[in-house]
């Protein structure tokens, strides 16, 4: 007989949070600290959403690309604990290697200024103006300028510079040259302020510390609980149905994918036509392929950088970046010091991917494509670690299908939705009282830092709603 993980839940809570991604976790923590009763329901057996990991053959593989701006330290200190904030450390060796350029950088403003001036021969003034413009972009600015136009303004015709500026951000959140320049400017400036940071100890320890803090703040956490429906009566949320059980609440926060929240969990019939029309215009972001490479126990690899952006494409090409045969990928290299106490080396290769390229393959084609993906990745890695094939002890791959299976995100979307999703996400409570959404919508609210911060913003709205006695 299977265990019912929703057993003994209370009949009513102030808030039910659906989904334990970083936005859902942070939102739940803030609300619980504000003395609201919170039930957190997660369908998977681990918390973290895409900030997750798996263990095989003595390795722990981190799934989400580890690289966020320094702001994550402050976010963890303010909305979590100083201990969690203290786990965050800088990744110093960021390496680019493609036919247009090849070098290692600390990926911050000083070093980028030096590189743009010395290698790319850009006049100092243009560089300063570019950084100044990116830094001064804010949320309320005009969205009509694309990232491409933004780059053209400061570095006209310089495809190599555009690639340098775009490629890492495309890996970080799936954005492209066609997306609004302001989102790019904000995210890029965040990175440039102090470089790229990661978690020492790995995602598993990071999320475990968050789980402990949630329990200290009396959040009722239930994993392996799949929410089937958000219950709406008279334009008001009244609770959810999870594992077949109805649980009441004054407010519901969904940290599921925005579109599945609207169409599946709530149902179109509960929204106005105009809202559904807006929701239908929201584009999902792309998905991801990953290859997990575990080095045999006892074997070592030399230091080749912490994060390597490698590509054989002659220039930045958005189609190539997502194609099934892409040569453009990031390698996150995990040396033993990443996980103090461990003596294992591992590498996670990530590339952007289209769900449609993988969705309709037969089982046989799918297996063959996965094998090809792994072999192509090893071939690419041989350039940096020539003896890699002798040292591999474990090899596995994830595709858009894998991401869909584990996260339940439509089309395995690994970066939520494009920027137009934010307006729809924030518009939910105006349609249905007590219904909120948090999670990746647009690049500002995406990634570990963006998601956690969006969780705080939504917790503020929920707190406001509950303080007003449950009315908008």
């Amino acid at each position, binding site marked *: 007989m299977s265990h019912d993980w929703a057993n003994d839940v209370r009949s009513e809570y102030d808030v039910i949070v659906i989904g334990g991604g970083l936005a859902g976790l942070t939102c739940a923590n803030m609300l619980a600290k504000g003395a609201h009763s919170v039930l957190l329901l997660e369908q998977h057996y681990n918390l973290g959403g895409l900030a997750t990991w798996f263990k095989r053959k003595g390795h722990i593989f981190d799934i989400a690309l580890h690289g966020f701006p320094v702001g994550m330290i402050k976010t963890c200190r303010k909305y979590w604990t100083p201990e969690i904030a203290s786990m965050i450390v800088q990744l110093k060796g960021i390496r680019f290697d493609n036919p247009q350029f090849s070098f290692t950088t600390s990926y911050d403003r000083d070093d980028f200024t030096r590189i743009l001036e010395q290698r790319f021969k850009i006049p100092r003034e243009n560089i300063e103006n570019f950084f100044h413009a990116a830094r001064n972009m804010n949320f309320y600015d005009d969205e009509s300028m694309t990232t491409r136009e933004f780059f053209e303004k400061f570095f006209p015709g310089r495809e190599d510079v555009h690639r340098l500026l775009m490629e890492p951000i495309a890996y970080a959140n799936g954005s492209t040259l066609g997306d609004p320049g302001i989102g790019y400017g904000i995210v890029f400036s965040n990175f440039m302020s102090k470089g790229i940071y990661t978690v020492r100890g790995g995602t598993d320890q990071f999320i475990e510390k968050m789980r402990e803090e949630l329990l200290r703040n009396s959040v009722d956490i239930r994993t392996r609980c799949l929410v089937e429906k958000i219950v709406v009566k008279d334009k008001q949320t009244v609770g959810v149905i999870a594992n077949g059980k109805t649980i009441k609440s004054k407010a519901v926060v969904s940290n599921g994918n925005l579109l599945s929240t609207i169409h599946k969990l709530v149902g179109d019939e509960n929204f106005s036509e105009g809202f559904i029309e807006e929701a239908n215009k929201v584009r999902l972001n792309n998905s991801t392929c990953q290859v997990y490479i575990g080095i045999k126990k006892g074997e070592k690899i030399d230091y080749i950088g912490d994060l390597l952006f490698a590509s054989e494409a002659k220039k930045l090409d958005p189609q190539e970046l997502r194609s099934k045969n892409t040569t453009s990928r990031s390698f996150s290299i995990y040396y033993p010091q990443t996980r103090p106490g461990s003596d294992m080396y591992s590498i996670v290769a990530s590339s952007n991917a289209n769900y449609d390229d993988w969705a309709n393959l037969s089982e046989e084609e799918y297996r063959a494509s996965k094998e090809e993906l792994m072999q192509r990745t090893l071939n690419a890695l041989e350039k940096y670690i020539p003896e890699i094939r002798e040292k591999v002890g474990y090899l596995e791959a994830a595709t858009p299908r894998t991401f869909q299976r584990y996260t339940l995100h439509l089309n395995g979307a690994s970066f939520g939705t494009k920027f137009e999703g934010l307006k729809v996400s924030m518009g939910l409570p105006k349609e249905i009282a007590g219904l909120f959404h948090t999670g990746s919508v647009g690049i500002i609210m995406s990634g570990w830092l963006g998601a956690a911060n969006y969780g705080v913003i939504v917790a*503020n709205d929920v707190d*406001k709603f509950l*303080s007003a006695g449950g009315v908008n």
Partner: protein
Amino acid sequence: MTKEQIRAAVLEIIAQIIPDEDLSNLKGDVPIREQVELDSMDFLDIIMELRKRYGIEVPESEYMQLATLDGSVAYLEPRMRNL
């Protein structure tokens, strides 16, 4: 609360949110964000603290009125006068 007490209360909230910044020379008539490292999330924290500590609800359309210390005091005075 008097205007002076309100000013002290706002400064106390800011000090809690950005403990590493020196607030002793903060000018009242210059936007706070131009004088210390205070990002948009820090600003939201101020709004949340005002609700938590004093039950004051600042609608998003009125956030701009809290840009300076003097502006904050002027905005909060009628709302905190009787606390």
